[in-house]
């Protein structure tokens, strides 16, 4: 089991950083970057597990994660551009019309 635990820990660190960043940063684009960081953490984890189990399931998951990331980036950036055109700012706080 070469380094699976280390990979899991590293992945968790990346995930935690991404999560903290997602919650703390106010710029919409940076928030999405932070979600991508979380994806990276997950990729590292599944790759580590793939090695642990000596099969390719984890790597296949990572590939599908890439697909999800691409989809997410495409749609999220489209939305961000729309929002930016509308309000002229990237601040996530600017969009709170749903408040009760």
């Amino acid at each position: 089991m070469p380094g699976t635990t280390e990979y899991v820990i590293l992945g968790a660190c990346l995930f935690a950083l991404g999560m903290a960043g997602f919650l703390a940063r106010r710029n919409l684009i940076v928030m999405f970057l932070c979600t991508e960081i979380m994806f990276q953490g997950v990729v590292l984890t599944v790759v580590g597990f793939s090695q642990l189990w000596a099969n390719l399931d984890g790597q296949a998951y990572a590939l599908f994660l890439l697909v999800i990331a691409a989809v997410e980036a495409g749609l999220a950036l489209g939305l961000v551009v729309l929002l930016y055109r509308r309000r002229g700012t990237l601040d996530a706080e600017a969009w709170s019309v749903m408040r009760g």
Partner: protein
Amino acid sequence: MTPAALYTLYAAFVLGGTGLYFLLPNPDRGKPLAGAALGALGLVALVVAWALIGDAGTGAAFYVLGLVALLCTVRVITHPKPVYSALYFVLTVLAVAALCVLQGAEFLAAALVIIYAGAILVTYVFVIMLAQQSGPSSTDRRSREPFLSVCAGFVTMAVITAHASKALESSVAAGGTPRAEARLASAAAESGAPAGLVEDEAKPSDDGAKRSAPKPVTGNAMALGGAVMTRYMVALQLSGLLLLIAMVGAVAMSRKRVPQEGAVSPRAPLGQAGREVPPY
């Protein structure tokens, strides 16, 4: 996992989290030297934890790449300029790709670089540049609830990681991963060769000379392709569908003309009103 390693790991998370809290953008503070110091301590603790866990197979390369990835990620989160964030993230991706290579996932590494760094992040950079041409805005200078955010992220992951590491240790101790071994054995019995799921890709200096004739299996890429094309066929097709839907959605969204709120559109000249030349 020894208690020492566990507590070191907790210490790493606590130190790193505190450091991150100070490092997050805040215009009321000066240079976050304390944060940087705490973060560095956290990293050191992390390395110590790794060393204490000490699996075989983790070498200097892992430490270096892991630290690079973490440092770059911290900069992604803490840098007040989104462009720098994106560029640091490129470095993170490259480090992660290299880590994947260390784990024998070359194809995944290439895909990460091509798709993430080459396409997704270019798009991010593109949008950042389009949307924000002047320097950092107030949005980026101040973080939102940094303390709670850091707590949420780090507590969750510290607990999960510690738990997962312990579970991993115990499962390994209780006989390793029987599924993997059984599969390896059966595959070896069938093919009469070691199950080359991950082709033994040693350094090119060793076997480069032997590679005179083309081989039937091109390593990791072929194996991964086989897995994705057979076991994950449905998932593959669904992800294709997902991509298609996302593409259509993105095109539909970005074609829409959205006026800025409050902006008064100038009256079209007489005779031209209501008629627009569609974009090519």
